[in-house]
């Protein structure tokens, strides 16, 4: 089996300040990896480098494309990268406002990616949009409403539907449950877990919420000050943390 994503010696500086440094990891098909760490530890920088939103200073990001096998997404051309972003990647923003078009109906939001890759049959686009709204537990009769009319949790689910409609293989999620209350978080996590398992999706989930990674992630990477300080199976890292920072992180979680 070939890895879906292979990251080698990835570094990104903001001027003299280190964003993330010397990150190496391999993501296998169907695997979910969590990245935890405090604010400013370089999690989002890393995720944005993986998604092509930021250009890393050094390092390689080898992605196993459907059409052309393993390709370095750092050196490929912008059109190729955008094509991958529309077809094989999903990017879920923390704030659904960043990932949705707030002035466009739910159906249009879900259909955009389909139309961007060439779908030109209105009836089929709409049928697929309805199907996906159902899968993320949004009433399909609300297909013509704009995201403004939706609650925070619904918006986040709509964003997920919009991203998954073209059948991507890699989902990059930046704090997907941030800003939602706990019961809505629980439903969203449940949904995400179901989708990831059913679609055989690989995912990289950035979060500072250890409960999220405990539920979703197979493997865990802990970052501090732009460096990866600990890496391993999720349960292993959370139950037997080795690095001082990880120990602090795990012990900081409130026990109810």
């Amino acid at each position, binding site marked *: 089996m070939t890895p879906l994503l292979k990251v080698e010696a990835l570094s990104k500086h903001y001027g003299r300040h280190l964003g993330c440094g010397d990150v190496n990891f391999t993501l296998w098909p169907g695997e979910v990896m969590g990245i935890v760490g405090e604010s400013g530890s370089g999690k989002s920088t890393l995720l944005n480098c993986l998604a092509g939103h930021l250009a890393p200073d050094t390092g390689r990001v080898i992605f196993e494309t459907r059409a052309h096998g393993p390709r370095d997404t750092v050196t490929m051309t912008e059109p190729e990268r955008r094509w991958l972003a529309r077809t094989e990647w999903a990017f879920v923003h923390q704030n659904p406002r960043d990932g949705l*078009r707030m002035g466009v109906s739910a159906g249009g939001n879900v259909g955009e990616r389909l139309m*961007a890759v060439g779908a*030109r*049959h209105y*009836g089929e*686009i709409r049928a697929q949009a309805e199907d996906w709204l159902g899968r993320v537990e949004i009433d399909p009769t609300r297909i*013509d409403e704009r995201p403004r009319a939706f609650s925070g949790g619904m918006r986040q689910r709509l964003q997920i539907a919009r991203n998954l409609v073209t059948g991507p293989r890699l989902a990059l999620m930046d704090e997907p449950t941030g800003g939602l209350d706990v019961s809505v978080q629980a439903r969203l996590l449940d949904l995400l877990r179901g989708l990831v398992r059913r679609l055989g999706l690989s995912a990289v989930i950035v979060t500072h919420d250890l409960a999220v990674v405990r539920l979703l992630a197979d493997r865990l990477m802990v970052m501090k000050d732009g460096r990866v300080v600990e890496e391993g199976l999720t349960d292993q890292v959370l139950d037997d943390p080795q690095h001082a920072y990880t120990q602090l992180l795990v012990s900081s979680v409130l026990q109810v």
Partner: protein
Amino acid sequence: MSDYNFAYLDEATKRMLRRAILKAVAIPGYQVPFSRREMPMPYGWGTGGVQVTAACLVPEDTLKVIDQGADDTTNAVSIRKFFARVAGIATTEATAEATIIQTRHRIPETPLTEGQILVFQVPIPEPLRFLEPRETETRTMHALEDYGLIQVRLYEDTARHGEIARAYAYPVRVEGRYIMDPSPIPKFDNPKLHNAPALQLFGAGRECRIYALPPFTRVESLDFEDYPFTASKAAGQTCAICGAEDSYLDEVIIDDAGGRMFVCSDTDYCATRCAAQAEDAA
């Protein structure tokens, strides 16, 4: 007249404009930036079209100017007089006699021929403008053919109105590449853009953009497979003056009691048909 250089603009400016026009013709549908000049008329009155016309004019040209299809509206009359004065060229109202036609919001009904130039006045050249406000981003989208968004707009129309409700400035795809705003012509005129024997130039003065359709260019109106493009006009109406069934009609309110009539928007086409009918009757 001798106080002005031929066609108002100085030669260096005309050369700059011609370079932009040549580039636009070389890349059909691509918006070429140019450095606009102050014109003796306000923005929104066709400064872009006037500058393109000035750059194309030669002393032998015959100019026709139309506004919403009519030769006798304020905008058309003033631009025609302007060029008659600063360039001393011949003017006409007959589509077939003109070598350059400057137009706002219409393409003449009489089919254009090889050798004619049609100059459009364009208010907003960017077809993606109301979908994506950032110019840097729309340029990137054009460069990368990232056109999913404009289809989203057609989707929204279809979802809300049951059809693509856009009646004018209906976006087109040029030679399977650039998406272009054909200026606010009614979608009835869109099929005339396709494979036209005349050179079609588009000038946007306020936005400093020139784009072009060379003769015999493939121009397709965007649509859905199950909601195809239709070149619509006032349904079931004919021109009250000349009886034309195939021309684009203006609705004119004629009294305070709800009375209305439909007449050809192309005044030259209507007058020509009336003259022919009078001749037949005689």
